[in-house]
């Protein structure tokens, strides 16, 4: 286990101790102290996962998140001081996979990093191609084709779609999806699900405002339209 993690954090103490904790957990860590440096390091040597502070000098964490998403499907974990504010929601909508609230304990961070990496691993149960409404979901190749053209999904988006599509018509509660896709055993943030569904719709629906595939079941959760 020597996955490479890029840690972008401006506070030297937090950066050092987090590096220590991640290294002890078996990761190879590269660090950057501001957004611009973080983006440069990301381009110089693409890591397996990015841990990104929201508040960064030079280039804001949200801006870095947007830039990385433009060129890569790498899992992104946001570090946020304010779990309840729009920062988290914006980060998730920009494509972050998960977030950890400051202050955090290292085992908590390590667990979230591992969960994100597990999602990103191409090792998916089942090899049957699932076809649904013009989409072909290929678990073996870890890719999705829409009308024959490949769509770039992040690992989290891919697993969310596969989970929903594997049992069409079944309604999934947000809690169940948090457990199955994000690996939160309990008390996950349902905004993770909502943001990911929104991102998925933007990629797979003809009209994301009038979804035909990924349906909201009012007051319960989500399901995929059968057929």
């Amino acid at each position, binding site marked *: 286990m020597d996955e490479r993690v890029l840690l972008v954090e401006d506070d030297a103490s937090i950066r050092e*101790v987090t590096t220590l904790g991640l290294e002890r957990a078996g990761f190879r860590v590269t660090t950057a102290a501001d957004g611009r440096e973080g983006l440069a390091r990301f381009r110089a040597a693409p890591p397996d996962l990015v841990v990104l502070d929201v508040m960064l000098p030079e280039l804001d964490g949200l801006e870095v998140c947007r830039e990385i998403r433009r060129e890569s499907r790498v899992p992104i974990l946001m570090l946020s001081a304010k779990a309840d504010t729009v920062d988290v929601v914006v980060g998730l909508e920009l494509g972050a996979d998960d977030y950890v609230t400051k202050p955090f304990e290292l085992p908590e961070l390590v667990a979230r990093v591992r969960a994100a990496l597990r999602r990103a691993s191409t090792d998916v149960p089942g090899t049957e191609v699932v076809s649904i409404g013009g989409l072909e979901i290929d678990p073996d190749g870890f890719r999705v084709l829409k009308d024959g053209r490949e769509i770039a999904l992040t690992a989290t988006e891919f697993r969310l779609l596969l989970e929903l599509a594997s049992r069409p018509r079944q309604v999934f509660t947000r809690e*169940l999806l948090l457990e199955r896709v994000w690996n939160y055993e*309990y008390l996950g943030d349902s905004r993770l699900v909502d943001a990911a569904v929104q991102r998925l719709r933007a990629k797979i629906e003809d009209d994301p405002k009038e979804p035909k595939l990924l349906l909201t079941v009012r007051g319960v959760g989500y*399901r995929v339209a059968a057929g």
Partner: protein
Amino acid sequence: MPERRVTPGRLRLRLTIAFILVAGLSAAALAAGSYLVVRENRLADSVERALDQSRFNLVLAGEVVGEGGIRGVVEALQRRGEFTTVASSGGDAFSSSLSIGQGDVPGELAGLVARGDLGHQRVTLRGAPYLVAGGRVPESELDVYFFFDEQELQDELDQLRTILLVGVALVALLAGIVGWILARRTLAPVARASEAARSLAEGLLETRIPVERADEFGAWAASFNEMADALQGKIVALSQAQSRERRFTSDVAHELRTPVTALVAEASLLAEQLESLPPDARRPAELLVADVGRLRVLVADLMEISRLDAGAEPARLEPVDLGALVSAVIRDRGADGQIRVDEEPVILESDRRRLERILGNLVGNALEHGGGEAAIRIVAKDGSAVVEVSDRGPGIPAEHLPHVFERFYKADPSRTSAGSGLGLAIARENACLLGGDLEAASEDGQGTRFTLRLPVTRSLHAGHGPDERPDDDAERPSEGGSR
């Protein structure tokens, strides 16, 4: 604040009525007085004239009676006109008119005349007023009565009365109009002042009354404005002080966040290495880890309370299975099996993260102070969901109970606890934000019970999905969430 609504214009009405009464009564008294005086004079005049004429007539009759008898007397007198003559002597009677006869002479007058006096009396014959004067012709047995028609006099008096009545009515009406206008003008500043006071009470602190007149109302308006100035100054100063204090809390929390984040991460790293530390260093390291945990809770609570004060975050509603959430909170605290849960299935529309904070605090309290015995009961009651968290701990003394939801309030200042002293304050503010409330009941030595009441009502602006699509043929989930 009890709303005491007063119908405006009552005083104006009273003033107007008073005006009408004073002017109307004076005019009426004056009119009635003059009418009575005029009437008395006119009636007395009429009598005097009738008696003068009668005396003269009787003398004349005395000269005629010898020649023409009764008939001659009546005919002679009738030529003088203006009255109707009735003459009687013994059983014999004669009248100058067909409509008036001996029978119309009032008996009282007849008696007076029989005694030889000159008398008069007023009678009404067939609706017409008459003055009857009568007397005995000197040195004869002949009584002669003169019926003077007073219809014209009566008509005049009636006309006068009508004019006076109309006059009184006009005066009263005029008084009413003048009174209304005067009352309105006088009371206008009062109405304005009442309007101003109300808008001041509603929070428009810049409300002032224009000082227009140099009278009592002007002075009053000036005083009112002084009071409003003072009030506005006080409130502005107060809210500035409050927002300074809140900004300070928020700044402190934010400045503490970065070092505390580093401390928490460092402590968690240290915690894994406690076993391998030399014995001398191990105990201090353990204490350090525990104290960093307390500091973390304090900073997190400070940040949350300053966010609540800023009121920047609206509740985010989504369906929440209360029983499942309670179980998750208990599991998260590592207290599986330590708390008895007695639940009715309740699903409500609420903010999951805030509910989690409230329940986490209550569960944490029950575990810490509960004396090892805690229970949670979830019931749906009258459109509310009620969560009762009770324990069998030492309880909260009655004098401390009303203060447990105050910030930094600690029942026993010497007792150190893992809490920040903000937990219950935050829990209650979150409960209020969700449209519910949180209460505490306790008996010394009998344990404590916290009751959280929440509205179940589904809100239409539940923002739990980016795209809301009603989906009627949806199946219920076959797996029950995270339980």
